[in-house]
């Protein structure tokens, strides 16, 4: 009983080639798992890629089970990479927002400090100007008071002189009148 060529080909394919091909594919599974992990890490925000790739590769290396388990691990990592990436991105965004808020707070604090310093300087200048005006006013007031006092002394002296002159004139007139009275009495006698 002779074998037909098709039967021989099928036998060779199923008995030799398929196991070889399957074995070859299975040997490639860890490599595929590694590539999946790298691919998953690349979906994360840049700042987190190295950390998670190293962490996942470390666990991948010591994963119990066979090569199919490693492939499944890679597939699960890949499937969850989007969610992990979204969480990390949200965290990064919050960090950026916090940094911006902190920067804004620092800017506001600096602006408040600048405004306070400027206000203090303006107030200081205003106080110095007010002190200067007050000093000038006091000096002028003292000068006016001094001038007025001197003027009063002069006026008083002048009045005293006039009083003295008037009194001298009155004495002369009185002596003149007394002399005339004396002359008239003498004439009557």
């Amino acid at each position, binding site marked *: 009983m002779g074998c037909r060529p098709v039967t021989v080909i099928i036998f060779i394919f199923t008995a030799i080639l398929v196991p070889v091909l399957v074995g070859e594919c299975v040997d490639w599974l860890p490599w595929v798992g590694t590539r999946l992990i790298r691919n998953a890490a690349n979906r994360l925000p840049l700042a987190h890629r190295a950390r998670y790739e190293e962490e996942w590769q470390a666990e991948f290396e010591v*994963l119990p089970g066979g090569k199919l388990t490693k492939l499944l691990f890679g597939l699960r990592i890949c499937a969850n990479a989007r969610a992990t990436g979204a969480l990390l991105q949200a965290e990064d965004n919050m960090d950026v927002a916090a940094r911006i808020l902190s920067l804004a707070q620092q800017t506001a604090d600096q602006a408040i400090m600048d405004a306070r310093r400027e206000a203090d300087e303006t107030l200081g200048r205003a106080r110095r100007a007010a002190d200067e005006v007050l000093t000038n006013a006091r000096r002028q007031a003292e000068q006016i008071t001094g001038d007025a006092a001197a003027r009063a002394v002069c006026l008083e002296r002048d009045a005293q002189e006039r009083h003295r002159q008037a009194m001298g004139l009155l004495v002369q007139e009185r002596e003149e009148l007394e002399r005339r009275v004396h002359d008239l009495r003498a004439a009557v006698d």
Partner: protein
Amino acid sequence: MVSPTGFQMTLQTQAVLRVLLDHPLQEHYGLEISKAAGLPSGSLYPTMARLERAGWVTSDWEQVDTHEVGRPRRRYYKLTPDGAEMAEQALAATLERLSPQPGRRGRLRSHGLGPVRQPGWGVGQ
């Protein structure tokens, strides 16, 4: 169900928190947590990222000589003191929501749902 920090207290998150609370002072790596929580390996990391983001968990690299141990260094996760407290409260609140009527808690326990311990237990062991 939403935790006090705003993230969803999913069954996966609850399972992870229970594992971490079993040994709150101990550091755990991802595979260890996955195995103890009964989660498929590789599906843990969004949960851990969420917990880290909330400040319940911190992580750090293992301090080993990789040539000496013959494997890459691991990333270890650990509950923070505040995280342990918040996790206890969140799990207790979740259990409370799941068992509003007296007697229901026992049925949930028999099905393996809900932590048995009360807030504060397990911390400082």
